[in-house]
């Protein structure tokens, strides 16, 4: 694709800390290359702000290769911007054209309070994982490969669920700020494997309880999460989450 440069107007959410009010600020950036990533464009803007003696914009990022899930930005009304199955760091400026105005907001959810500017606190996800998103085993030496036979379709489905990077785009896109897609990916990933089977009932009950405590909403199956998930996690996992929940509840298991 042909390379081009563009001038852009950015409307970015600025907020000093969790307590302060926050507002949009408007910035112009010039001569942005279509080959840049969205975050590189933000680096250019931040350099510019530093040169002007202003405070740079705080935003979350780590791997910049689409695997860590840190780069939470709501761009022109979409989590991670306009490209399908793409994180913000993998979004490139060729998605935009000269003269565009781009509105950048933090994830909006009661369970993800703003720390500063575009950075939100996603530790609620960590606490949901701590409530059961693991298996309890004594880790000795690694076993030989293929010691446990696992059907190919189960392994594939589990692997697909395990590609969730915990980015929170599902919560950000859901009208109920529900964490169901994230939780369902974690529950399905383990419930499909023999290693996860032993604790599957208490796991789902504990993780659902923690999700509710964190202040996420209830799923109403709108499918916005799936459409915005950078890893294409399917809402079929939410079907499985519900089935796991019903099975655990009816068997009389209790969250602990």
């Amino acid at each position, binding site marked *: 694709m042909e390379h081009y440069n563009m001038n852009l107007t950015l409307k970015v959410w600025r907020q000093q800390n969790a307590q302060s009010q926050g507002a949009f600020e408007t910035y112009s950036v010039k001569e942005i290359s279509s080959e840049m990533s969205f975050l590189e464009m933000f680096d250019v803007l931040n350099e510019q702000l530093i040169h002007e003696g202003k405070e740079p914009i705080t935003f979350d990022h780590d791997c910049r290769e689409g695997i860590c899930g840190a780069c939470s930005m709501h761009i022109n009304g979409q989590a991670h911007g306009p490209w399908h199955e793409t994180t913000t760091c993998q979004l490139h400026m060729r998605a935009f054209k000269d003269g565009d105005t781009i509105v950048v907001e933090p994830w909006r*959810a009661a*369970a993800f309070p703003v720390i500063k500017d575009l950075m939100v606190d996603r530790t609620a996800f960590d606490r949901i994982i701590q409530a059961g998103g693991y298996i309890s085993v004594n880790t000795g030496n690694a076993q030989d490969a293929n010691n446990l036979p696992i059907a190919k379709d189960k392994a594939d489905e589990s692997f697909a669920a395990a590609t969730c990077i915990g980015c929170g785009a599902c919560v950000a896109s859901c009208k109920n700020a529900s964490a169901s897609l994230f939780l369902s990916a974690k529950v399905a990933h383990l419930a499909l494997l023999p290693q996860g089977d032993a604790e599957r009932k208490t796991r789902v009950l504990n993780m659902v309880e923690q999700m509710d405590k964190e202040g996420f909403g209830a*799923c*109403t199956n709108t499918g916005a999460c799936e459409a915005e998930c950078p890893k294409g996690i399917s809402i079929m996992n939410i079907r499985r989450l519900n089935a796991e929940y019903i099975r655990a509840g009816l068997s009389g298991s209790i969250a602990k």
Partner: protein
Amino acid sequence: MKNFLTSSIGKKLVMGITGVSLIGFLVVHCYINSLIFLPDGIRRFTEAGHFMGTNPIIRTLEIGLFAGIILHIVQGLMLTVQNKSKRPVGYNVSPGNKSSKWYSRSMGLLGTLILLFLVMHISHFWVPNRYSQHFGSGYEINLYEKMEMVFQDPIVVLVYVLGCISLAWHLLHGFWSAFQTLGLYTPRYAPLIKGLGTAFSIIVPLIFIAMPVAFYFGWLPPASSYVPSH
């Protein structure tokens, strides 16, 4: 498990179970009422209506139906409000229809429209009928004649049509959503459930719409043309 029906998933299970029950009710209701379109329809409809209004099993199920719809409404409205509170600060630019269908996001609103229609609908037929049975003549009212009367008013006909359209949108999302909530929307059955749900959401409300419209335009035989045989 003590939070089984009160957790976020539990509340949705309640919505799903009551929702599916309401769909079951619609099947019966739609079948019986559509008898008016058949030859000798007044007799068929009146006999079926008499059975439904007097059979003790049906009358017991009716109590369950009322409990179910009240639970569905109260839980649905509470969920709508609670879910809304989970995003206290909204987006400046919202995704709109890019990632989800408008009617899937408007179940509370569509449900409220259905509720408004239901209040009118129940006071048109159910209330006078049960009143007559228990406090009046001791018999049911002539429901066919009542429909003929009620549907002379174009405003009433319009409200019924709008109520049924709201129901259609509500079901277009609600039907498959209930199966998803109950863990039954498996890849194997998903196409069947989606297809059945779409057909149901269009056909059933259309049949219901046809009733007030047909009475209004006088397409059905007049109530006076029917003389009960007993």
